[in-house]
């Protein structure tokens, strides 16, 4: 037995390390981890409790019927109002609130429309796209194209 003593100590060290690991693990792993899946279950409620920012497209048409109708007939029909005008839940709940709809300023308009319409080789050929450097370089886009009825 004496000749095994050093090995017994190794086993004790490993056992202590294992217990230590399990203890540290119990401290580090959040309590609700694994309840619903391989994640912290409490995070679902925490995320659900985060403040909302977007009102959704249905909220806009209550007041902006004309713009909604125009857009519905245009090639921008699939794009949500808030994609261009920003998150507007505050505005939808109270139009007088500080949450004002965003409208791209003239100076930034070319870059703004260019997000989607700048020519790149990876877009389908039929997709409306222009070379921003060559296509009327000094003019804001809405001088010719109306965003709610683009042509």
């Amino acid at each position, binding site marked *: 037995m004496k000749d095994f003593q050093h090995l017994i100590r190794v086993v004790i060290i490993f056992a202590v390390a294992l217990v230590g690991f399990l203890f540290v693990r119990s401290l580090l792993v959040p309590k609700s981890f694994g309840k619903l899946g391989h994640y912290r279950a409490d995070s679902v409620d925490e995320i659900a409790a985060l403040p909302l920012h977007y009102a959704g497209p249905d909220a806009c048409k209550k007041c902006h019927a004309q713009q909604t109708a125009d857009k519905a007939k245009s090639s921008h029909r699939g794009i949500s109002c808030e994609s261009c005008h920003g998150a507007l839940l505050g505005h939808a709940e109270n139009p007088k609130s500080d949450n004002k709809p965003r409208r791209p300023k003239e100076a930034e308009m070319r870059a703004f429309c260019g997000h989607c319409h700048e020519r*790149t080789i990876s877009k389908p050929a039929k997709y409306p796209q222009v070379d921003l450097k060559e296509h009327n370089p000094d003019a804001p886009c809405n001088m010719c194209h109306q965003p709610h009825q683009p042509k």
Partner: protein
Amino acid sequence: MDMAIIEMLRGALGKVSGFIYPNELELQWSVLIVLYPYITGLVAGAFVLASLERVFDVKAIKPIYRLSLLVALAFLLVAPLPLNVHLGHPERGIEIFMTPHTSSAMAMFGFVYLWYLMVVLLMEVWLDYRKEIVEWSLSEKFWPKRLFYKVLTLGVTNISPRSLEIDDKLGRILTVVGLPSALLLHGYVGFIFGSIKANPWWSTPLMPVIFIFSAMASGIAGVMLVYMLACWARNVKIDMPCLDTIGKFLLTAIIVAFSLEMLESLQTVYEAEEHFDIISLLVEGKLFVSMILIQIIMGSITPIFLLGTVQLVELPEKARKIFYALAGTLALIGILAMRWNVVIGGQFFSKSFLGFTTYKMELAGREGLLSAIGLGILPLFILAALLYLLPPWEKTKESI
């Protein structure tokens, strides 16, 4: 997105050729991911060399048994670092141990790594050195070192023949268990690439096997060079039968690794599936230097020729040493190039099979060249510290 980003993207178009998807512009796996399998491979290779003496009783390589274990340990300690540096959040690395998911290869092999480090390698080094550790803990004059040895004895100074016999037996068992662990640890690095279905350059079940054999070649070459350097630095004569035996094993490992790689390439050429055009363009173009010249001609065929010559022609000792040193160095460079070709090469071409992107390595950034060099030589400093604390030479002298 403002005009600056649009301008940047326009500039980036110059970097690519043909058609690529936007998310393929930048390579996600950098030079550090080249380093990761390389270092892990050196560990596995060095351990296999050690096991040759312990399990398969190849007496000739006894002088490098302990050295190979220490090389394996030094590199194993550094192996996860490139990954941590690459991910940028080293403090999160522990999470794969805390909440591992069975579907994550990385998490599961984290445990293989832990097992290999703690149970196999550290235990084996400790068991093998225990007699000396006890002796040093009594005789060492420099007190911090003496304290270090005292701690390592775990308070047991019994080195009776019976206890040493038990150590030896247990060490042998550990090596037998350790061998598959070492292969599994390195095989997994290949497994991670081999299991990426979307990438035909990686997705082959042969990948783990190829990685294992090239790992053996790199580990054996690495230990051989460290041994030669150590003998030179200590002004000790190199044990030629030992070096010749290592040379033979190195030759075998390189031949097997190279043949497997070529078989895999042949299969790709013969099958000529839809990705074949892009891959042949890749090999003839962007990877020509690093694959055809460095990996195949310089890193595989030349070492085979050099080591083969030693086997076939009777050369004087000095010439053999030069041949071994040259072959070992070339093999190490070639295998690093192989890792590069797999990791970086596999990200060069688009999943559309219609275009290429490029990789421009940073110099000083977190994933830059300097960072890679630093991580690459860090194991050598650790090895130097290990050699200082646990000199493997004592036993060597007896055995010569």
